[in-house]
């Protein structure tokens, strides 16, 4: 078995707000092996982005604080590193791409300036070598006339091209781990298909592991090897992608899959919606966070929080049943 590149153990990230402590991430554990793509799925507010930002320690503090847990990357606990050391890891060993390529690129710098900045900073190349490398990266992500395009500003690019440029920046230092936070959510489906294909190609070329955060189960099914499903700041299920889609154990995973409209199925049966709404993270119910919406919930679910445990080799679930 390949070794773990990243292991998160019992991570807790809390936000201290005037109206109470928001436990955005409350006891998340999972690991990511070398060369694999891990999907992190959940709805808005399930803590998937906060988990990713905790890894790179991008949590605004105050009000946010990593209250506990370990983030082991390549054998070192990132939470024990100094700010200086973390800065060296960011962009070099672990890099991140965000949902909205318009707001994450600097509008007053050209694409070339933003690309070379990363390369000069982390790879200690001189300006000319960095510029050559930048053009090469743009070519790799499929932007035509790369040399000319280095002089363009982000607003001159379309949404798909901006996301390609973001990927070029993120991969320019050959990171070991790429965290992609909803990289295709803002894009149209035909462009999404292009970007997903590109990410898969580059993953093989650069031997990068990918942590893909998304709410789209379809995207997960297409590109991921393993999946962790999150709900209200906690992981509820972890399995390899085939097991998760074929034999999901947690009622939430099951409900998520059932609520998707399926185009290949004839007939217009009703969608099986999950009733109710996710809980307020400031006033979490005792017991299982999903219990109020769960059709199978029993008394024990409302009283005791279920343990996140291994039920079969490589399949983890947090449910009393």
């Amino acid at each position: 078995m390949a070794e773990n590149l990243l292991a998160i153990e019992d991570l807790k990230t809390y936000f201290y707000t005037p109206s109470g402590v928001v436990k955005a991430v409350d006891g998340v554990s999972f690991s990511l092996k070398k060369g694999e793509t891990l999907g992190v799925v959940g709805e808005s507010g399930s803590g998937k982005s906060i988990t990713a930002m905790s890894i790179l320690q991008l949590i605004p503090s105050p009000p946010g604080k990593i209250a506990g847990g370990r983030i082991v990357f390549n054998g070192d606990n990132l939470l024990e590193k100094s700010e200086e050391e973390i800065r060296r890891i960011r962009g070099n060993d672990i890099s991140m791409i965000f949902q909205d390529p318009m707001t994450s690129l600097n509008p007053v710098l050209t694409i070339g300036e933003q690309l070379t900045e990363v390369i000069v900073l982390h790879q200690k190349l001189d300006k000319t070598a960095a510029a050559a490398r930048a053009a090469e990266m743009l070519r790799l992500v499929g932007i035509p006339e790369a040399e000319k395009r280095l002089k363009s500003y982000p607003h001159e690019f379309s949404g798909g091209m901006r996301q390609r440029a973001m990927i070029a920046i993120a991969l320019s230092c050959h990171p070991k781990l790429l965290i992609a936070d909803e990289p295709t959510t803002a894009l149209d489906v035909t462009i999404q298909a292009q970007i997903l294909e590109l990410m898969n190609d580059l993953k093989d070329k650069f031997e990068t592991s990918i942590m893909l955060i998304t709410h789209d189960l379809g995207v997960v099914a297409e590109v991921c090897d393993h999946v962790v499903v999150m709900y209200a700041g906690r992981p509820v299920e972890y399995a390899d992608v085939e097991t998760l889609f074929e034999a999901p154990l947690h009622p939430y995973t099951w409900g998520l899959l059932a609520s998707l409209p399926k185009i290949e199925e004839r007939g217009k049966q009703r969608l099986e919606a999950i009733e109710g709404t996710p809980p307020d993270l400031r006033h979490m119910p005792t017991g299982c966070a999903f219990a109020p919406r769960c059709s199978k919930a029993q008394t024990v679910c409302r009283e005791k929080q279920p343990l996140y445990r291994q039920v079969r080799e490589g399949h983890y679930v947090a449910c009393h049943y």
Partner: protein
Amino acid sequence: MGPLLEVKNLKKHFSVNKGSIFNKNVGTLKAVDDVSFEVYKGETLGLVGESGCGKSTAGRCILRLIEPTEGEISFEGRDLRALNAKDIRRARKDLQMVFQDPYASLNPRMKVRDIISEPILLHGITRGREVQNRVAKLLDVVGLAPYHADRYAHEFSGGQRQRIGIARALAVEPKLVVCDEPVSALDVSIQAQVINLMEDLQREFDLTFIFIAHDLSVVHHISDRVAVMYLGRVVEIAGYSELYKNSQHPYTKALLSAIPVANPKLKKERIVLKGDVMSPIDLPPGCNFHNRCPHAAAVCKETAPVLKDIGNGHKVACHMI
């Protein structure tokens, strides 16, 4: 029986101006260019396409929230374009709209009671005490409780807000509701709830829907017939299962194959389109899709294809068919 709504050769052109003093006209953006379709009573027509294809503009033109440049819109045999400002406002009793963003389409300073009763009072549906009874009934119909009437929009979740938007549209007992991306801002589990609600309401109140969305699987689920738009034109229109099983236009095919399917075992033959959508300003003659089309021939660059009936109510605009 004739169609409830008939749209013929609808056009909406925006002129693109540059400069602050002389406002020189530098081009024309054809947001909707020669679109025709019919909507029959009790059905749902899906209008699907990617950003900028003109689907929302077409929807707004029907209600004359945007004034069309050319074309005919006849509703129950009456030409909506011939109506003066007062009459069109009256006609909107039968034509209502549900908007995409439930955060932006509800007035934050109004209580839910006032949001829903405003159209009732404006159109003189009832008055006095009856109004509040009606509000309570509408809230019940969309799955909210009577006490919600005294709250403000910000106190609700996204799904609940969309329910309020639906209640407001239904308050005047419309015949046709134009739903502009009503579920795209919602999480999947909530999206399924709202879709089910809309289907129930359609049956209960004998409603006709135009359902505008970019998500083909959602459109396919809810629609009886689907019109696919690309850069201001309808490229294909057919019954929902016909469109899925027997799509003819290369763009529809690519769009269908680009949808990520939540089934890891189903590795589809995916058509990944090259390049981006052309700039909608001053489009060249010919088919708008020719620069990305895998089957484009010389004729496609010269003349724009027209919608051809290929039987079974299935129409396609492509030279190659």
